[in-house]
């Protein structure tokens, strides 16, 4: 008992939600519609009321195992089944599985004569029976206002409607009641006064010839909800609402780096390329190779085995593939493998928010890790720059939240290179610029990195080359006349080469001269040595001669002395 009391207390504090299963709607409402209470969905003709309520019931049955009742006052069960078959809903099968009960209420005023007092107990009995037959948790009444056409006594009808909504609450079913939008009121017959919990208004508006569907919560009692208008889409998978403003700046960042597809560019970006989940903006003048650079990035993503979504606003899929082949990049295999999805739409196809809705949906369905938008500047055809900026902010946040690396190209005018027409550059983590420089009768592309958050990056200009074999970035020369590119750069290169050759030759020559000098010196040294040794020999000869003369003289003196008979040795020599 204590436990149930505790649960009751909790449910008092927190409104229980009933997930609709409709993409985006549960995110806006923080979980879905108020459980066990009726919600009014109103809007003009053809704005998607029936579809929204049908999807609520079908998703409830299929995704959440909650059976539902669809009571239609306008279309027969067969008509409804046909209408939603295109969305992949098999109503007959759900009825067979006891997950859905359909009841078509037909009111023909001409057949009915009114006399005396009555109530709508028959409606309650039918609804009650339908609910009991499948154990329904969800109920749709589409649209209950048709009763006003069938019963002339509005007093009784209003009292009965009040009782009906009370009764639905008592039954504990989560209900959607639809109503046609009226003049100055939310619904034509003012039934919003009976539904006090949640009111959703659907709208189908045409701005600048493109229609956008929008949804707004007028009221959601006891729950936080976004009060903005949310664009929504109806396509082959049903309803999807965009939680466009519910994003914040609280995403986690990645330290992982991914290649740009061009080694030289990676080198310029601190050697490793972009951060994963960063946003990259590539600005450039017309024909500067923006799409080529984008295609290289897409190719690099596919090479890593990751899915890449390429949103093209100017060229068709085949055209992109053909054009990229001409620079040696074949994207077709990636498309075939399902890694690359080229989605080409004209910006004018629908309003900006529908584009956003489309991108959200494609992203959710395809789950890419890289998204390329080529080019974002084209979006300003369909909306003001302010609107484009606000959409791009949402997109950048959306992609970052999903850890998707996003790459945007932007066409700039030559006289305002370092600004984007939509002022989005401040949103971007990396901003690259390619400009055409005209000089010496030719146009050449020059590549800059204007910014790159969170990494050391090159401040050098590079020449951007697009050749048959792909893209390359080469050093540009900076001379007195500015940046040299193209043939001027080639000329410069030739000149440098010639100068280097000349220097080499000069060196050779000098070395040769030196060698010869060395040889000559060697010869001279040898000659001098020879001279010295000749003189030495001469000197020796003279010495020998004088010694000999000495000896001869001494001998002669001895002989002379002997001849004189000198008796004593005291006879002095030389006397």
């Amino acid at each position, binding site marked *: 008992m204590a436990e149930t009391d505790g649960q009751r207390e909790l449910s008092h504090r927190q409104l229980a939600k009933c997930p609709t299963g409709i993409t985006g709607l549960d995110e806006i409402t923080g979980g879905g519609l108020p459980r066990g209470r009726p919600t009014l969905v109103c809007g003009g003709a053809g704005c998607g009321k029936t579809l929204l309520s049908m999807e609520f019931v079908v998703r409830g049955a299929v995704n959440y195992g909650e059976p539902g009742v669809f009571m239609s006052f306008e279309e027969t069960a067969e008509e409804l089944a046909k209408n939603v078959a295109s969305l992949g809903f098999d109503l007959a099968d759900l009825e067979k599985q006891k997950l859905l009960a359909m*009841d078509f*209420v*037909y*009111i*023909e005023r001409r*057949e*009915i*004569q*009114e*006399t*005396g*007092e*009555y*109530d*709508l*107990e*028959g*409606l309650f*009995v*039918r609804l*009650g*029976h339908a609910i009991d037959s499948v154990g329904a948790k969800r109920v749709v009444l589409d649209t209950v206002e048709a*009763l006003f056409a*069938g*019963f002339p006594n509005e007093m009784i009808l209003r009292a009965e409607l009040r009782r009906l909504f009370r009764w639905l609450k008592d039954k504990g079913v989560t209900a959607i009641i639809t109503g046609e939008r009226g003049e100055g009121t939310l619904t034509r017959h003012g039934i919003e006064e009976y539904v006090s919990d949640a009111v959703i208004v659907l709208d189908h508006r045409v701005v600048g010839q493109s229609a956008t569907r929008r949804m707004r919560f007028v009221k959601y009692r006891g729950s936080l909800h976004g009060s903005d208008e949310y664009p929504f889409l109806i396509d082959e998978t049903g309803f999807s609402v965009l939680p466009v403003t519910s994003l914040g700046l609280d995403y986690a960042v990645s330290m992982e780096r991914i290649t740009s597809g061009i080694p030289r560019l990676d080198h310029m970006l601190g050697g490793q390329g972009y951060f994963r989940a960063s946003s990259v903006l590539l600005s450039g003048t017309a024909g500067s190779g923006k799409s080529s650079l984008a295609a290289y990035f897409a190719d690099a993503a596919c090479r890593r085995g990751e899915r890449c979504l390429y949103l093209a606003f100017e060229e068709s899929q085949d055209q992109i593939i053909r054009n990229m082949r001409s620079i040696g990049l074949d994207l077709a295999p990636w498309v075939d493998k399902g890694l690359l999805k080229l989605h080409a739409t004209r910006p004018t196809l629908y309003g900006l928010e529908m584009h956003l809705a489309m991108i959200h949906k494609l992203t959710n369905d395809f789950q890419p890790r890289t998204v390329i938008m080529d080019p974002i500047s084209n979006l300003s055809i369909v909306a003001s720059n302010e609107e484009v900026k606000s959409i791009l902010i949402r997109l950048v946040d959306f992609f970052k939240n999903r850890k998707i690396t996003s790459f945007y190209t932007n066409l700039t005018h030559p006289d305002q290179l370092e600004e984007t027409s939509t002022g989005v550059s401040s949103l971007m983590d990396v901003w690259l610029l390619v400009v055409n420089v005209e000089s010496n009768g030719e146009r050449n592309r020059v590549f800059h990195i204007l910014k790159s958050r969170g990494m050391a990056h090159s401040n050098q200009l590079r020449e951007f080359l697009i050749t048959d074999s792909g893209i390359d970035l080469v050093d540009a020369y900076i001379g007195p006349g500015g940046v040299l590119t193209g043939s001027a750069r080639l000329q410069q290169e030739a000149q440098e080469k010639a100068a280097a050759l000349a220097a080499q030759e000069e060196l050779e020559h000098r070395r040769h001269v030196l060698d010869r000098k060395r040889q000559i010196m060697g010869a001279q040294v040898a000659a001098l040595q020879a001279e010295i040794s000749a003189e030495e020999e001469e000197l020796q000869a003279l010495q020998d001669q004088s010694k000999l003369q000495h000896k001869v003289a001494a001998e002669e003196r001895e002989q002379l002395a002997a001849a004189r008979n000198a008796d004593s040795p005291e006879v002095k020599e030389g006397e």
Partner: protein
Amino acid sequence: MPNEKDYELRLYVAGMTPKCLAAFANLKKICEEHLEGRYSIQIIDLLENPKLAQGDQILAIPTLVRKLPEPVRKIIGDLSNTEKVLVGLDLRERI
């Protein structure tokens, strides 16, 4: 006698509420007065047979349905206004 029962009437009720009882009493009286011997009345209690509400597209209670003669006519309410009931049953010219 083929046209003995040429008025086939169904009265849809939901339980024995005062309105339903009044409707039945009023119907019985009108039929006795204007269709003596030419009618049959079937009472259908939707609380017992909720499925039957769908076939005749019943929403209001009580509802009198003239199944025969065709075309089908529906009269809702407790049938307290005899004139209107007679008009609804095509027994009196519509004014």
